[in-house]
C-alpha cells in the first residue's frame, strides 16, 4: 500500500505542480483526504473533481483506483479556513 501511495503522490505532483496532500488510509487500505493545490483557485469544485477523476482514470488501473475512497480538491486558503472551524 505504501508503494501505491508514493506512486500516487508522485503522479499527482507532476500533474498538479507544487501540490500538497493530507491523505490517510482507512478501512480496507482505502485512501481519503485532500489534494491541496493553488491552481484550483477560482475553479468550480465539480470541474476540479472531473479533472482529478480523468487524470486518475487515465493513469491508474481499476485495481489501483479501488484503493481511493475519496479525494477532496481544495486550495491552501480553503484548507486554512476549514481548520479554523
Amino acid at each position: 500500500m505504501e508503494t501505491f501511495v508514493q506512486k500516487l503522490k508522485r503522479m499527482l505532483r507532476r500533474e498538479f505542480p507544487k501540490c500538497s496532500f493530507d491523505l490517510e488510509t482507512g478501512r480496507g487500505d482505502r485512501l481519503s483526504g485532500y489534494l491541496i493545490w493553488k491552481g484550483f483557485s477560482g475553479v468550480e469544485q465539480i470541474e476540479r473533481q472531473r479533472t482529478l477523476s480523468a487524470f486518475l482514470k487515465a493513469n491508474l488501473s481499476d485495481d489501483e483506483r479501488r484503493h481511493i475512497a475519496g479525494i477532496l480538491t481544495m486550495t491552501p486558503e480553503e484548507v486554512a479556513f476549514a481548520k479554523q472551524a
Partner: protein
Amino acid sequence: MSGGERAAIAEEYREAAIERIVCAQELYSSGRLVEANYFAGVAVECILRAYRIRIDAEFDARHNIGDLYRMGRFADIVPPANADEINAALGEVIALWSNGHRYLPEYALKRDWKKRKLYRHRGLWIKGDFFKELTRKLMNSSETIVNMGIIQWKPLFKN
C-alpha cells in the same frame, strides 16, 4: 457506550440532519440567507456525525466537516458514479461554511466572503447578488450530501 446506544444516537443525528436541511430550505425560500447558510452546514455536520458515531463514539472533530467526512468513512458509502458530485459538494461546504458564522450578522458574513474573494470565479466577478449565489451553492451542496447520507443509510441493528 454500547452498540445499541451508538445506534440510537446515530439515528438522532440522521433525523436531525433531515430536520435541519428542511429548515434551511424554508429559510432560504423566505430570504433569510444567513440563517439558511448556517442550518445547511449544520445539516451536513449532523449526517457526517451520524456516520461517525456508528464506527466509534469517541471523537473530537469539533465542527470540522473534512475531519468528520474522513472519520465517518463517508466516502465508502458513495457509489463510484456519484463520487465526483459528492466530493465537489463536500469541497463546496468546507470552503464556504463555518460554525462560527452563527455569530455573524449578514453584513459581516458578506465581508468575510468578500475578504476571501469568493465573489470571483476564474478571475471574473459573479454576476448579480454574489451572497445569494454562494448561499444557493451551499444549499445545493448540503442537500446533495444529506440526500446521499439518507439514501445510503442502513440501520445498525434490525428490529
